[in-house]
């Protein structure tokens, strides 16, 4: 029977997750791919989710995708705006590269796997198809656990096991929900998981290790949206701030705050594509997020009077010191209350800055998603969820985020006890679901859970639907 664990049909194999055979954990998001061995504390392989296309070459390399000299280099991403795989060809190659280049030794001489990637793309895939039995597949010795979002499609789930089994030759496979992994890693079988990544923000109720489907809320108010808010701010100040990425600067001289940049610029013979430039600009925006942007921590909201002294919070903030940011061209300036205005929309749609996208709605804000998510579950369960809130994802590292979240949720549910758990370590916050998968995949007992190759061969790809809930 498909729903039976594999030990009912074959003797347990204690070596999965043991010393001899190590499972590999793959946690792929919109901004990065995290891959590593089960049982380790952090993913050994941390890769950008972006890849490059130049001419008819496809490039999977964290260095080369930043190389402006590659002719007409276009930067692409296999993930959709909702953080699930959209382009399976690219995702397969990107993930395989993330695994083979950093984790496992592969035979020399196969250029597809020696990290050079020069012949990636279609050629490499064709080799597999022509001689499926002869070629040694890269993961024949490693069970593979892949994490996925709560809203991953059935088609994508089946595709994942197919790639793992057919292309990579894994002996065993598992799909784990990233929110459940993050919740478990925080020590909670029941939790409200709030994840703000790059493409998507989500709020999900988990009860006894299972996602409550009705409670799944998601919206685009995550890292990429914050970047678009920063761009909106840069375009609205006078003079406008142009983000000139590092690769365009050959030298710079220090200038006073607010003064025009004094830099010399690189000249390129080849065309620099918009996608390449946008991807390089994004790196600068991430630095800006890390060092300048701040969420107004509460109490109250930025554009409302302070509950105690009645003065607009915005005015109070103006009195606190700003933060200086130096752009790659050397220009620099102080960012005052604007550093908080750009993320206020996460909580209060009325104050989101205008962008080229349609305006955001109230339902997309974090507090409204929390309200909707919690309201969708049984009343009796709500206190346990609100007392066990797990915060994860890179965008939750915004300074002040958890304080504000605490204020927002406390005012939504004034009589409930609210407790937020957010890993203090940056790595744990960003790798929460990878770490959860890593521990699970390393357990001796977990060998009974894996979907074995035999099961896959017997029941086909749809076995994931039955086995991985």
């Amino acid at each position, binding site marked *: 029977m498909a729903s039976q664990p594999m030990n009912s049909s074959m003797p347990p194999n204690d070596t999965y997750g043991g010393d001899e055979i190590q499972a590999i954990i793959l946690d792929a998001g919109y901004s990065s791919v995290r891959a590593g061995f089960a*049982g380790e504390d952090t993913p050994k392989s941390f890769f950008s989710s972006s890849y490059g296309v130049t001419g008819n070459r496809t490039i999977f390399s964290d260095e080369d995708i930043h190389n402006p000299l590659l002719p007409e280099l276009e930067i692409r991403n296999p993930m959709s705006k909702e953080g699930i795989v959209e382009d399976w060809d690219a995702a397969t190659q990107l993930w395989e590269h993330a695994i083979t280049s950093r984790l496992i030794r592969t035979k020399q001489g196969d250029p597809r796997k020696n990290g050079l990637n020069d012949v990636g793309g279609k050629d490499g895939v064709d080799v597999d198809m022509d001689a499926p039995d002869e070629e040694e597949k890269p993961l024949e010795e490693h069970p593979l656990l892949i994490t996925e979002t709560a809203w991953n499609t059935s088609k994508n789930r089946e595709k994942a096991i197919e790639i793992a089994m057919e292309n990579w030759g894994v002996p065993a496979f598992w799909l784990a929900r990233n929110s459940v992994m993050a*919740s478990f890693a925080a*020590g*909670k079988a029941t939790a409200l998981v709030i994840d703000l990544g790059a493409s998507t923000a989500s709020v999900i109720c988990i009860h006894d290790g*299972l996602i409550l489907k009705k409670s799944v809320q998601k919206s685009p108010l995550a890292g990429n949206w914050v970047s678009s808010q920063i761009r909106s701010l840069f375009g609205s100040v006078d003079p406008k701030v142009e983000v000139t990425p590092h690769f365009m600067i050959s030298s710079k001289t220090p200038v006073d705050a607010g003064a025009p940049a004094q830099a010399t610029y690189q000249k390129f013979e080849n065309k620099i594509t918009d996608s390449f430039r946008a991807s390089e600009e994004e790196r600068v925006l991430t630095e800006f997020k890390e060092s300048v942007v701040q969420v107004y921590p509460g109490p109250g909201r930025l554009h409302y009077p302070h509950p105690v002294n009645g003065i607009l919070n915005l005015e109070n903030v103006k009195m606190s010191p700003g933060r200086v940011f130096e752009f790659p061209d050397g220009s620099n300036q102080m960012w005052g209350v604007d550093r908080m205005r750009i993320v206020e929309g996460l909580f209060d749609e009325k104050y989101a800055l205008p962008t080229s996208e349609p305006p955001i709605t109230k339902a997309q804000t974090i507090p409204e998603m929390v309200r909707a998510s919690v309201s969708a579950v049984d009343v009796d369960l709500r206190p346990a969820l609100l*007392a066990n809130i797990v915060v994860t994802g890179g965008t939750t590292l915004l300074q002040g985020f958890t304080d504000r979240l605490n204020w927002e949720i406390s005012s939504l549910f004034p009589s409930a006890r609210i407790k937020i758990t957010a890993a203090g370590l940056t790595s*744990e916050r960003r790798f929460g679901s990878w770490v959860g998968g890593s521990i699970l995949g390393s357990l001796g*007992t977990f060998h009974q859970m894996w979907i074995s190759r035999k099961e896959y061969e017997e029941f086909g790809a749809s076995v994931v639907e039955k086995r991985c809930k």
Partner: protein
Amino acid sequence: MSQSGASIAPDCVTTFNDLKLNKKYKFIIFKLTDDYKEIVVEEASNEGDWEVFREKLLQAESKNMKTGKVTKGPRYAVYDFNYDLAAGEGSRSKITFIAWSPDDAGIQPKMVYASSKDALKRALNGLAVEFQGNDTDDIEYQSVLTKVSKGLASS
């Protein structure tokens, strides 16, 4: 079977039934064996003082399977919790399941306990209330009384 693959030792259920049906115990503390393969009874007791029970949870430890490092440890517990109703309407008894996972426990034991909990809960029939505790306040008598009685207990 649990989501981690860990199994439940048969005496977990028999001990629980002794508490539930025969009122033989006031509480049971369950733990995962050091190899994380099985959930077993660590202690079954008829000690009636909540503080004694609480102290046992606070002192619980777990060992990291890989490094051998000992940290504060998670536990599961069942407590036969009794309280008087505020309106003088008599007393109530609630068999309460507690998933104790202190925030300062190691991440490995936290993960294993969280992913093994579902199976133990399913094996124990007749639990009236359950809650997760992560810090010392969560298992203060008063806060547990409020949770278990939904605020209806006399204090």
